[in-house]
């Protein structure tokens, strides 16, 4: 797949507003970035799809041309990614995923149920006092409240506010419904039994998105998650999991995607830093089906909610990248109704290519909010 600019060179409004997007759709191409007033669309496509489109357009006498999309840089900055930084309004991560597109469209994931399976959640956090949250614990002897911090941080990134009590906006799906399942105890550990129970619970509640910032550093696919991922997708629920922090790239170790992210039907998320480079710790794709990194998201120095009087903390990990993707999934689901496999395709289809990064490290590229939603 590559990104192309498709131009319909005519001024006829009927062609530009109806026929052209119809032709794109008929070839399975997205019209989310089709601009009818310009007669120009930006699509992710195989070149043979566009050859077919070209033939159909010629048959209908609709003038059409296509070119690979070019990347433009501000001249003063030169090529190469600029360093993003947290501003008073937004964390660098929310800027990177282009949250402003959702803000402008008024899409905040309302009505979408996001399950975060982690160390629990602090429902008394000052930024979540007015938010409804369904919580459950699958850890023996522990209530659903987060006594670690990791779970609250992940809930914060996936579903936290755009305008918190203090500091920059840090949550992606600011109006999504929070389902916090505690599957890791206060010591940060859990087992298949607690995690699978959490997935089953999320499916009972028909959560469209299941976010799992957890993993084990094992290369082998663990069969229970192959079945769980497939059965979740069949019900229209997408499991999004952290690729793993087992790399140390600065020492030449690229690591591997661990379980459960290495299962087919489970989306594996890598971490990038504020210059949009693969994080030093972020695991590389494994060479088996399902072992690929599927997408990347901000995961270094991520500011989000924390338990206790501290309120906020800045930490790093593919755990922090994962809820960025889950939040974007909530926005897409809320705006378009896409679920399951369709939602997976929309997430990867809208990801932006990361210059200079290997597909093995970042998959489809940087997860981002689609542009062009009607408000």
């Amino acid at each position, binding site marked *: 797949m590559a990104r192309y600019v498709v131009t319909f060179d005519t001024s006829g409004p009927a062609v530009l507003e109806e026929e052209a997007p119809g032709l794109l759709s008929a070839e399975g191409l997205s019209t989310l970035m089709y601009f009818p007033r310009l007669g120009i669309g930006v699509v992710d496509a195989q070149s043979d799809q566009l050859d077919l489109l070209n033939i159909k357009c010629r048959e209908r006498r609709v003038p059409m041309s296509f070119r690979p999309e070019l990347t433009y840089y501000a001249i003063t900055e030169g090529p190469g990614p600029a360093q993003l930084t947290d501003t008073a309004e937004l964390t660098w991560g929310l800027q990177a995923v282009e949250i402003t597109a959702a803000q402008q469209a008024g899409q905040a994931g309302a009505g979408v149920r996001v399950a975060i399976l982690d160390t629990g959640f602090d429902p008394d956090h000052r930024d979540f006092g007015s938010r409804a949250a369904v919580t459950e614990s699958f850890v023996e002897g522990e209530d659903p409240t987060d006594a670690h911090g990791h779970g609250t941080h992940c809930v914060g990134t996936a579903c936290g506010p755009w305008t918190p009590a203090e500091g920059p906006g840090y949550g992606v799906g600011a109006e999504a419904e929070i389902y916090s399942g505690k599957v890791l105890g206060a010591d940060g550990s859990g087992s298949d039994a607690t995690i699978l129970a959490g997935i089953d619970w999320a499916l009972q509640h028909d959560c469209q998105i299941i976010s799992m910032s957890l993993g084990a550093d094992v290369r082998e696919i663990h069969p229970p998650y192959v079945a769980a991922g497939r059965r979740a997708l069949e019900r229209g629920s997408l499991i999004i999991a952290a690729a793993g922090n087992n790399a140390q790239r600065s020492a030449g170790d690229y690591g591997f995607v661990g379980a459960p992210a290495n299962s087919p039907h489970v989306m594996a998320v890598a971490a990038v830093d504020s210059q949009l480079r693969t994080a030093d710790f972020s695991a590389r794709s494994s060479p088996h089906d399902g072992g690929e990194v599927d997408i990347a998201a901000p995961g270094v120095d991520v500011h989000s909610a924390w338990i206790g009087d501290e309120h906020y903390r800045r930490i790093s*990990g593919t755990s922090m990248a994962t809820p960025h993707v889950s939040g974007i999934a909530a926005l897409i689901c809320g705006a378009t109704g896409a679920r399951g496999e369709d939602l997976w395709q929309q997430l990867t289809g809208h990801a932006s290519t990361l210059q200079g990064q290997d597909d093995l490290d970042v998959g489809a590229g940087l997860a981002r909010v689609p542009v062009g939603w009607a408000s």
Partner: protein
Amino acid sequence: MARQQWIVTVRDDHRDQIDTVIGELEAAGLQVEQVLGILGQITGRAGTVGSDEGTVHSRLSAVAGVESVDSAQQYSVGPPDAEIQ
């Protein structure tokens, strides 16, 4: 001596007969802990860690309608004070 925890995944074509599968797993020695009805998975304990896992795995795997039997893995995130979690 810790008992081994297992995850049993039921085959698609036996998910509507999960109760029968559970009965046969119990007869094969599994002490059932959870039935995850939507996922079609059962968690439970049988045998002893580091002792008879091979035998127990074979016995549970032989039950009709079982897709896979896997020993439960552990997962963790870093401690709260770690820079990378």
